[in-house]
């Protein structure tokens, strides 16, 4: 009875042992696999920690400096993480961060520009006011000692005004200051007036070209910046040679200095700025701020001229070339041609009311280029019969003006209105010429009326004036239609 028991026990033991061994083996395998997985997981966690640290210490700061750009060498440390949820989450963080930075920067730039623009405009207005006072003082005082001081004050004031103007332009403002059409030489000398070392500038060249009134101030400002650069970067005992040339498609102002010149990198940088394509970030100008090229770039782009500084001057420095296309230019007109015509046509204007009715039907005849003021007058007469709304505000000022001044004001008014409406579009030459012609016609007619009207008719004369002031508007309407 006892014998089968040990056998059974042995068998049971053996089975148990076997089972245990199998279990142990399995356990061992599981443990090893578990350990391996643990190691992988630990690696993963470490990699993610590293990645996170990299994100915080390297990638985000880099992004903060250059938002919206993909920077080489500052990607994720471990590219295997890119496909995981973690990687996608990190990209999301980066995108949001970048967006926030860009937004904040845009807002900061915008508010900085707005604040600068407003303050520069008021400074500019003060500088202009001061310039007028200085001019008046120069007219009033005859003493050379006083004049010397006034010249100095004037010079400083001009530079001061230019600085304010340049910053305002950089912040998106207009150059301000309406000027009449001026000879190109005067424009260059006007630019000379606004820089510190004006005595070192030599202007050569004789061209019978004028710059249109709308472009005078921007061109003056751009050339002043070029001249200032040239004078600033050359020895005080050297001169800056300016040559004004007429070329096939416009005119060129060539500025040569005998200064240190620019290396390839500087030329590249300057060319980029001068093209005016990049956004100007006013919060990132150097200290001291260097915005000359940026200002020229903005003006050149807005008004359609080009400036290049990539050639070497024969004097060893930089040669800057400003090219003004024909659209910005006009021919110099011989002044004071109109007054004698007014005198000769004066007797004819008195019997003129006869063909008034015919005048309204022969509107096209008015465009004919008959000599004398008669056709121009006919053109105005039918308009006088139109029930146009009077504009009494303008009527008060007109009687004291000369015909040329009237022509200029009306022309400028028409041009200005049209320019404002077309918002930044550069006008064709024909449009300019038309505007000038109609302005002149209106003004000539006005003079004839004033010439014939004696004091007894002055009230009747007054009633014409609203139509005169209205005329540019009507002409403008036909241009648009």
């Amino acid at each position: 009875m006892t014998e089968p028991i040990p056998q059974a026990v042995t068998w049971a033991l053996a089975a148990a042992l076997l089972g245990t061994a199998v279990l142990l083996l399995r356990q061992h395998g599981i443990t090893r696999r578990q350990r391996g997985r643990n190691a992988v997981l630990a690696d993963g966690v470490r990699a993610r920690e590293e990645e996170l640290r990299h994100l915080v210490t390297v990638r985000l700061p880099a992004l903060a400096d250059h938002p919206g750009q993909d920077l080489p060498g500052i990607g994720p440390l471990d590219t295997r993480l890119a496909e995981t949820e973690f990687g996608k989450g990190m990209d999301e963080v980066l995108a949001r961060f970048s967006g926030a930075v860009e937004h904040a920067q845009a807002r900061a730039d915008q508010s900085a520009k707005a604040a600068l623009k407003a303050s520069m405009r008021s400074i500019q207005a003060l500088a202009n006011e001061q310039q007028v006072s200085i001019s008046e003082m120069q007219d009033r005082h005859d003493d050379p000692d006083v004049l010397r001081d006034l010249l100095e004050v004037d010079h400083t004031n001009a530079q001061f005004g230019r600085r304010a103007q340049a910053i305002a332009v950089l912040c998106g403002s207009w150059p301000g200051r309406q000027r009449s059409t001026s000879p190109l030489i005067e424009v260059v000398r006007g630019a000379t007036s606004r820089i510190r070392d004006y005595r070192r500038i030599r202007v050569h060249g004789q061209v019978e070209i004028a710059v249109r009134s709308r472009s005078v101030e921007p061109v003056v400002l751009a050339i002043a910046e070029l001249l200032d650069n040239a004078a600033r970067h050359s020895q005080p005992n050297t001169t800056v040679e300016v040559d004004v040339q007429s070329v096939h498609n416009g005119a060129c102002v060539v500025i040569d200095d005998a200064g240190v010149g620019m290396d390839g990198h500087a030329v590249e940088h300057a060319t980029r700025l001068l093209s005016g394509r990049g956004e100007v970030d006013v919060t990132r100008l150097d200290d001291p701020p260097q915005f000359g090229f940026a200002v020229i770039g903005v003006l050149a782009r807005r008004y359609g001229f080009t400036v290049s500084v990539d050639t070497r001057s024969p004097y060893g420095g930089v040669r800057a070339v400003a090219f003004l296309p024909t659209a910005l230019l006009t021919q110099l007109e011989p002044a004071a041609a109109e007054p004698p015509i007014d005198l000769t046509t004066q007797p004819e204007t008195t019997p003129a009311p006869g063909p008034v009715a015919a005048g309204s039907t022969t509107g096209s005849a008015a465009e004919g280029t008959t000599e004398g003021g008669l056709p121009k007058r006919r053109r105005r007469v039918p308009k006088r019969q139109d029930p146009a709304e009077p504009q009494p505000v303008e009527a008060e000022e007109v009687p004291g003006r000369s015909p040329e001044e009237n022509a200029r004001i009306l022309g400028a008014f028409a041009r200005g209105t049209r320019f404002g409406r077309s918002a930044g579009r550069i006008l064709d030459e024909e449009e300019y010429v038309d505007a000038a012609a109609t302005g002149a016609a209106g003004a000539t007619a006005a003079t004839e009326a004033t010439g014939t009207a004696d004091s007894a008719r002055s009230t009747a004369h007054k009633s014409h004036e609203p139509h005169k002031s209205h005329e540019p508007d009507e002409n403008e309407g036909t241009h648009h239609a």
Partner: protein
Amino acid sequence: MTPRRPEARLVRSYVVTDGRAHPTRNTLDLVTLLIATTDLSLAGLNPEKRRVMEVCRHGSLSLAEVAGHLRLPVSVTKVLVADLMDSGHIVTRAPIPAARPSDTRILQEVLDGLRARL
């Protein structure tokens, strides 16, 4: 419309005189008559000096008139004219002296004569 102010000069006075305020001679006054000499070349003169020569070419003008034509302050014009005198482009003449004040006695006689006739 705001009342128009005279347009500020584009070329400032210090550029016109090259920074100088003192004329090279102080013999000029408002009524000095300027006469342009026609035989000298205008090369090398700045635009304002050319303009002075241009306005004086048609006959003598007083300094005040020249300043008016050029729309420059009189003191600045003096500097320019003094330079032109140095280079020989302009000669000056003292203003024509005013006629000697007439004798009141003669005037009285004329008046009496006229009264007697009419």
